[in-house]
């Protein structure tokens, strides 16, 4: 049986993919090399990691407003995360996900960066407010 995590109803399509997890925050402008598709901020816990096609599991959205535009351009250039799974986001990440059509969920019962591990296979269903961990049962 997969592990079922319930969250607030989200934005964007249902997707299935592999998790990349860190107890850290996120801004497309502050943290990413959006040409190479990697985390570029030296102090970020995912520095050097490719985010392309991964389900990013992080703590909070941070910083400025640029992510609202950037996610759509990243999607059209094929250098976008598959989904965003956060403890709590700010308006910018929600606006950016809505504009780009990228899956986004937040507001879980526990700390999602503890509940999900890097490499977990996830099914993210924003309209149902559910994330399933498919590869393990504890």
């Amino acid at each position, binding site marked *: 049986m997969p592990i079922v995590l319930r969250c*607030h*109803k*989200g*934005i964007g399509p249902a997707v299935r993919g592999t998790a990349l997890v860190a107890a850290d*925050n996120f801004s497309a*402008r*502050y*943290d*990413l*090399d959006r040409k190479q598709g990697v985390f*570029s*901020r*030296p*102090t970020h816990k995912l520095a050097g990691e490719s985010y392309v096609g991964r389900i990013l599991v992080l703590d*909070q*959205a*941070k*910083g*400025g*407003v*640029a*992510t*609202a*535009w*950037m996610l*759509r*351009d990243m*999607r*059209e*250039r094929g250098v976008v995360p598959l989904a965003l799974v956060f403890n*709590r*986001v*700010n*308006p*910018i990440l*929600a*606006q*950016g996900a*809505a*504009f780009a059509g990228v899956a*986004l969920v937040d507001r879980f019962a526990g700390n999602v960066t503890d509940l999900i591990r890097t490499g977990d296979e996830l099914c993210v269903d924003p309209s149902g407010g559910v994330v399933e961990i498919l590869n393990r049962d504890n």
Partner: protein
Amino acid sequence: MRLGDEEQAMLAGAFGEPRRWAIGHQIAVGEFFDAADLVPVSQAHIMADTESLGEAGVSFLEHLASAPEAERRVQVPTLTDPRGLDVAVYKRLGQSEAMRSLEARAIAALQAFGVLMTDTCINYQTIMPPVRGEHLAMGDTGVVIYSNSVFGARSNFEGGPSALAAGLTGRTPRYGYHLDECRRPTRRFRLQARPRDLSEWGALGGIIGQECGSYWEVPLIEGVEEIPGSDALKHFGAALASYGSVALFHMPGVTAETERGRPARVAPRIGRAEIEAFVASHGATGDKVDVVVFAAPQLSLLEMAAVADALAGRQVHPQTTLLVATSPEIKHAADRMGLTRRIEDAGAIVAAGICFYQSYAGELAEANGWKRLVTNSAKLVNIIGGYGYRPTLLSLERCIDSAVAGRVV
């Protein structure tokens, strides 16, 4: 979400495609945040620099802007945040013709909506200060936090698409800082040392921002015994918003709303040691300086005068670039008052309508071989590491001294 008759008609496309897209986007965001309805706004402010938009964003704007004029005109005054380049200086900075071309396309599209090209992140100092209780859709975190805190206005962070949507509908979803219940302080801090200059006010914002770490935290800062000026609060708020994603703070005796209570939790104390440790964490004394930047936020007229005074009779080192970014309005004033000439005579560049980090900062680093960046903006220090720079935070005077020496002093 509850929609009125006009909003239902907008959603059905009765007022054209731009407004149909806009209200659909607002409903998606509003439902995510459990907004009950839409609230009318008196102004919108769009962050639309082309580095962020990319080809996808510019094409989107052009598509919407191709609608008939009656369908595409914004319904409330809509301003712009800084742009990606200043045509007067882009060649000197090593920016490309492709960047200029994309920028021209974005400007043409924005103008077709009837957007006012203010190109500024200090509109609260230079264009139209908001008033208490005014609902806004502001598209720059520094503008939002200053408007909410110092004036008691009401705005969430509105990214470019959402700010454009607000301009087109004249409304925004009613959640977050539009609501009384979100404006109560959630954290207390006690200040035990007065920041000595703008860089230290930014450092204080950075310290509190790191502690808060969430858009939904509202810090109450006690112990501010002397009233900070507008530029100090500007740097403080911009850094707090940048490091913490914070959109509202309260400072008893200074900010607009101090009747919203006080969290019981014991307040962390911030003194001289904490401020100096924050500044020192970016220290690089003796390193070669590639670029010194005064921006983020754009400089007020008083800051322009301070830069001109600090440069008096000196020359920027030939291996160092000194860049000063301000708004078009302040640039005109600085031109008229001779400040621009005094700054540029010292070998610096004065740019209007940009704010450095929104101006292809990564490409600028590559084109010019820039690595070590010195600034008095804590916000810029926080942002610019992701673009490959090594930033150092210094006072305005030490930034100038470093620009002249060509190394961090």
